[in-house]
């Protein structure tokens, strides 16, 4: 029997997220009353509502056929890694080196073999980024590893 596993999973995740938020907020913030709401009132109620909605998503999906969609693990990890590298490196080694590394990592998950075109692409992206953000928009970010 086919089930809509994607919706079951997401309904469960959202319900869990809602419960965690509600629990955390209830423990840490004053809920107050309906007349004089405290900072905890909204997060707690929203968390509970989300938990209920998660149930509404997950339960009917149990008896329903869902479509199977491939999850692009490799591509997702590549892009997430590229973004994280950018966040970590930019203020340390400057824009130019960071952009080149980020573009290279991002393009590593692209279809197509070979390293040459990826290097050319990284160089082109770096030049373009420098021209737009430093030359034209004059952003104040370190450009080289030795500048600040």
């Amino acid at each position, binding site marked *: 029997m086919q089930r809509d596993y994607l919706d079951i999973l997401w309904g469960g995740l959202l319900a869990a997220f809602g419960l965690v938020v509600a629990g955390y907020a209830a423990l840490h913030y004053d809920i107050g009353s309906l007349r004089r709401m405290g900072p905890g009132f909204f997060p707690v109620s929203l968390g509970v509502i989300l938990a209920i909605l998660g149930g509404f998503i997950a339960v009917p999906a149990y008896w329903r056929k869902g479509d199977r969609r491939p999850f692009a693990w490799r591509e997702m990890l590549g892009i997430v890694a590229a973004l994280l590298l950018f966040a970590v490196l930019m203020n340390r080694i400057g824009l130019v080196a960071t952009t080149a590394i980020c573009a290279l990592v991002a393009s590593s998950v692209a279809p197509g073999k070979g390293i040459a075109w990826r290097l050319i692409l990284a160089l082109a992206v770096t030049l373009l980024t420098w021209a737009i953000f430093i030359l034209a928009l*004059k952003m*104040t970010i370190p*450009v080289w590893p030795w*500048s600040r």
Partner: protein
Amino acid sequence: MLTTISRRSLMIAAFGIAAAAAPAMAQDWPSAPLHVYVGFPAGSSPDTIARLIAEPLAESLGQPVVIENKPGAGGVIGVQQMLAQKPDGYSFGVTINGPLTTAQRLIPDLGYDPATDVAPITLIATSPLVLAVAADFPADDVDAFVADAKARPDEISYGSVGKGSGAHLTAELFASDAGIVLFHIPFQSYAEVTTSILSGEIDSGFMAPSAAVPHVEAGTMKMLGITSSEVFPLVPDVPVLAGKAGLPDDFRAELWNAFIAPAGTDPAIIARLNTEIDAILENEDLQGKLLAMGWKTAGGTPEDLAARIETDTALWGAVIDKTEAQN
């Protein structure tokens, strides 16, 4: 952030001519661009003040002065970012009073101690707040306002720009000194407070004089008093609150902007900057621009600023104690 002061700074930054700053030597300082961290977005009043100072400063020092906007947490992020830099004589900050006087009380994980981690350079400008009410509010002066508030405690409401903001603490200081209890409604911006007073939703608010003036001219708002110790040139008709309605003669509550450095910065550099900035603050054109924004230029020695930080920390600390005890 997308900011530069001069074309030169751009060229220098772009081509990496400016190598990493060597350990600061007071004699050949400055040999690289100065970075000034501002904890508010571009175009905000602390940012405008920083820019108005940065430009003549770059001229007199012969090096670009780059404004780095690091907005957030009421200016605290800007101070934190400045403190994350080396005290090499090239990292400075322009900040409002909050991050140096009240932040350690209001923010649990501040990560710095204003008394030991920050080196004061000079006080740039101060701004009082006016007590504003809608034009049809019964009281016409502060005595009547206080009498009214005594007659109906906790009924006259006032708006502030958030719990712990200058507007909130000023109002609480005023109320406790005058022996009255006002009802606090927090907002996010002076714009919201203004609209709310005009629509009659709230009764009063302590706000920047420049924000109240247009509505006073239009006849929809009144200013009952001002929190500075002398009459403020932008609103010469508004009486000072000090000494009136049971308030002490030394009643004073002002916001201010200051030029600071990370602790450990070469004292010779601090002294030089103090002289340069004080000279810049003498410029009448600059004074006029600041006054239009509601700021009066100050100046003084680094020790004056240190003393100001200390007195204001004690002043607002006491107010925070009192409001916390009430809740």
